[in-house]
């Protein structure tokens, strides 16, 4: 099976001469279908640039970027816009919801733009909001929602067109621990439904919930490891606490 995301020898350089910055440097990276990957690293390590290249928001200086079996770094801006709309879902740290639209309208918008009929888009958006535990928030505007609720609306919007891959840039960066836990539970649900997921985060607890963690330093992968499933429950952890 071919990988959902494939990057081969990808470089992204900014500036030139002494001011040259190698944001991403000769990087090889693959994500398989249904995989959930967390990309971590200190600020400035190139993780956000990596996500932008993967989603066709930016073009590499060198190398190849493939998404869903298509090479995207040689296509026109128009073709990439269509690819983003139909195959890539984006989630951002600061939600990027449209303030003048309700939660439901925010979620159905990308479906309408992709040509889904009004009725189908509305039904799909309602079903997603219900799945996200927001059935009673559909007619609220973003300003009336908490941070965690806004991010769940943003995630519903990102998956409304059933993207090949969901890309999230610091999705828990603006959230408290309770809202972070809500979002992480939601990622679990999406993953259980087979959604491929790449999350860029500097939040240790968000990263730790992944099955695969990739660490970046200076635009290169320094570690790529798989975490075995958790075998410990709350009682084990807390009885350990009582002893120390």
């Amino acid at each position, binding site marked *: 099976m071919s990988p959902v995301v494939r990057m081969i020898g990808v470089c992204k350089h900014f500036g030139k001469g002494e001011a040259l910055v190698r944001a991403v440097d000769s990087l090889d990276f693959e994500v398989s279908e249904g995989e959930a990957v967390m990309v971590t690293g*200190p600020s400035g390590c190139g993780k956000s640039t990596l996500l932008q290249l993967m989603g066709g928001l930016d073009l590499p200086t060198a190398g190849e970027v493939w998404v869903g079996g298509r090479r995207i770094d040689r296509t026109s801006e128009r073709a990439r816009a269509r690819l983003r709309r139909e195959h890539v879902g984006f989630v951002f740290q600061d939600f990027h919801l449209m303030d003048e639209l309700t939660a439901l309208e925010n979620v159905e918008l990308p479906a309408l733009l992709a040509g889904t009929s009004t009725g189908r888009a509305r039904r799909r958006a309602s079903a997603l909001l219900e799945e996200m535990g927001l059935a009673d928030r559909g007619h609220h505007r973003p300003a009336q929602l908490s941070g965690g609720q806004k991010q769940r609306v943003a995630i519903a919007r990102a998956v409304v067109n059933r993207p090949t891959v969901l890309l999230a840039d610091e999705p828990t960066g603006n959230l408290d*621990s*309770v809202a972070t*836990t*809500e979002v*992480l*539970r939601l990622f*679990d649900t999406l993953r259980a439904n087979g959604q491929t997921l790449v999350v860029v985060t500097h939040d*240790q*607890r968000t*990263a*730790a*919930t992944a099955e695969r*963690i990739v660490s970046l330093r200076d635009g290169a992968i320094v*570690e790529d*490891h798989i*975490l*075995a499933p*958790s*075998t*410990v*429950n*709350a009682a084990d*952890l*807390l009885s350990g*606490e009582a002893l*120390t």
Partner: protein
Amino acid sequence: MQREVVLALLAKEPSHGYELRARTERALGPLAAGFNAGQMYVTLGRLEQSGLVTSTREAVAERPERRTYELTAAGRERVEEWLTDVTWPRPDLTDFHLKLVVAAAGRLADPVELVSAQRRELVRRLRDAQRAAMDEPDGSDASLLLEGVVLRIEADLTWLDACERVWGGAP
């Protein structure tokens, strides 16, 4: 802790007792305060009894005899185990710092590698704690206690980042 530090310093090269003391002071800086002269010989004596070091006498004219201490195979193995042990029963910052100092001083292991190994172990624990928290209802006693566990592990991970910055020589 003292035993392992002495063993680790001997792993680089055999040494006399007084020389070893000087090397300990150089390697540990302010942390060496706990090692007084008497203790060094007591520790070496015990390590010899346990078969982790051996010593040979050297006659020097007009002076008290001196002993050269050397690691046995078992002693070398013990150093190896101590350096790669990631159990961290409760975060013992001093013990971990000593590992980094003597690993670097004796060129026994790359301190950045030790930090990475410890980080992998803590990430595994953080995953267990956060996953357990995700299984508990919000606002429950268990979720609050687990939040405490998560926050402490996060603090330790942040400290490991600081260790990496210092030992990795990153700008």
